[in-house]
């Protein structure tokens, strides 16, 4: 997080619109990958993904003023992004427009590797098979969050998070074996 973002968030009296916009743009730029990962996980189709992406940015902007610096900015972002994903209306499935992570995520980077992308596709395919609660939990786990932080974002107790995650691991294992 840049110093600019921190200074605007901490200073509640800062009403300079330009500065607020700059801070917000900076925040989104730094976290566009995070939003992308959530939208890819919660949608099946390209248009749907684009809509959700915009919805998340819009919700983050709407609540940007109300963000309090006492909670971690990443916790706030995960919470808003995941909650937005939960409350959207799904578009009807259409043919030929499904989100494939190749051509979308990594092709533009210098390190493009087809095998790596194939394996990523597999990860997404397994995660997408989980239900909405499991999806949120596994996403946060893959993001490297500790049980306490997952509990803070989800509202479940850390023990409950642990139990559910071990169940999800089992489920994923079975899915993978089946394949």
């Amino acid at each position: 997080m840049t110093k600019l973002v921190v200074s605007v968030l901490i200073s509640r009296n800062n009403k300079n619109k330009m500065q607020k916009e700059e801070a917000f743009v900076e925040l989104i730029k730094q976290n566009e990958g995070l939003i992308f990962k959530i939208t890819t996980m919660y949608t099946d189709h390209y248009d749907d993904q684009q809509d959700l992406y915009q919805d998340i940015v819009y919700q983050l902007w709407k609540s940007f003023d109300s963000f309090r610096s006492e909670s971690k900015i990443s916790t706030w972002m995960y919470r808003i992004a995941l909650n937005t994903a939960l409350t959207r209306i799904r578009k009807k499935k259409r043919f030929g427009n499904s989100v494939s992570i190749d051509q979308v995520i990594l092709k533009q980077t210098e390190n493009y590797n087809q095998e790596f992308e194939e394996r990523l596709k597999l990860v997404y395919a397994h995660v997408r098979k989980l239900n909405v609660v499991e999806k949120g939990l596994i996403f946060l786990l893959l993001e490297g969050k500790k049980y306490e932080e997952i509990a803070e974002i989800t509202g479940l107790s850390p023990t409950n998070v642990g139990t559910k995650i071990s169940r999800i691991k089992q489920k994923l294992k079975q899915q993978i074996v089946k394949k």
Partner: protein
Amino acid sequence: MEIEEMKALWSDMSNQLDQQKKLTNDIIMQMTQEKYTNKFKTLANYETIGAFVCFAILIFLILNIHKLDTWYLLGCGIVTMVFMFVFPVLTLRYLRKIKQFEIVNKNYKEVLVGFHKAKANLLNLQKVGVFASFIVIFTSAAVFAKIFDDKDFFMVERGVKEYLFLAFTLVLVFFFSRWGFRVYQKVANAAEAVLKELE
């Protein structure tokens, strides 16, 4: 593939995504200006148009209620009017609740529970609507036959053609209602499963 391997892949992907900046300042600010794909708004717009049609019918029925000169036709008129008023009002109310659902100060669990409950209310109303329309199709036919043609729907003599048409309508409405009910039931069951998961 083990979970640890998934974690490693995910982490690699995150690193690569961090290098790949796609959004420009303009695009980001455009996203904050307007939700040009607000699907709730679209749905609410359709429902609002539907509500205006229902209210127009309601006003028309109030103005012509004196033409319903038997107790059963008057009963049909009242049932139709109640439906034309209550159903759109409740639908718009539940839609508004979903549209204005607050997500900023809630955690994942609270959003899931609250949103699914709001959705379940709307679905239950739609389910009732599907069955109510089954009745209203007849009450409204009786009412309009009387108002427009001064004919008593229940007393009028019908030929084979009319009875066939009536039977065909009934079958059609039955299958439509059953399909609608199953769709709503499926969504409601999925919502219930999620709530159970959180208990």
